[in-house]
């Protein structure tokens, strides 16, 4: 498995304590969430979406090596 960057935004950066972490490709979005909930239990109580290569991801979507992964709380621009 390849190492990949997971980006965090908004209040998730507080919760994770960083804007980026490196993990091994977990395979799918569901598996990524499982892994994040283990590492950061507070994320289970937080509303966020996951984007793969700048598109919102679906639950069982496969994560390809080299993809850009972002964990994003509700948007609050403007």
């Amino acid at each position, binding site marked *: 498995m390849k190492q990949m960057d997971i980006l965090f*935004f*908004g209040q998730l950066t507080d919760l994770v304590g960083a804007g980026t972490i490196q993990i091994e490709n977990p395979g799918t979005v569901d598996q990524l969430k499982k892994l994040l909930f283990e590492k950061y239990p507070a994320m289970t109580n937080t509303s966020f979406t996951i*984007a793969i290569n*700048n598109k919102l991801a679906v639950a069982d979507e496969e994560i390809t090596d080299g993809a850009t992964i972002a964990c*994003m709380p509700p948007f*609050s*621009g*403007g």
Partner: protein
Amino acid sequence: MEKKVPKNIFREGPIAPAFIADSIAKHATQTGIGGHSIFLGQVRADQIDSHTVKAIDYSSHQEMALEKMHVIREELFAKYDLTCMHVYHSLGMVRTGEICLFVFTSAKHRAAAISASSECVERIKTELPVWGKEIFEQDGYQWKINS
């Protein structure tokens, strides 16, 4: 076919009124335009419990935001008979009273310009991955929630 590079809508810090004036003045040569609609977001000194907001620190998943903005732009041009659309959003610190969002649409007829700018603002607020951190007067902060 070459993929069009999305325009960069982001500006570091607040959007200056003089910049807005320049944008307006640049449209004087486009004599097919009959109406401009502009929306400006301004940072409010909200009271939150015993705290007062003094600034919002904006951050974004920029690459995704620019791709999304490109889609919004194309959809609004397809939906309305527009001549121009310009969007600028601040990143970093914007103090209360300063402008953080500038949406500017122009069209032959006012209805298209007005509907497009208002729809554009709603879509920016709900669809662009941008976050605001409300910085308090004394110290502390909270993450902004869009209503």
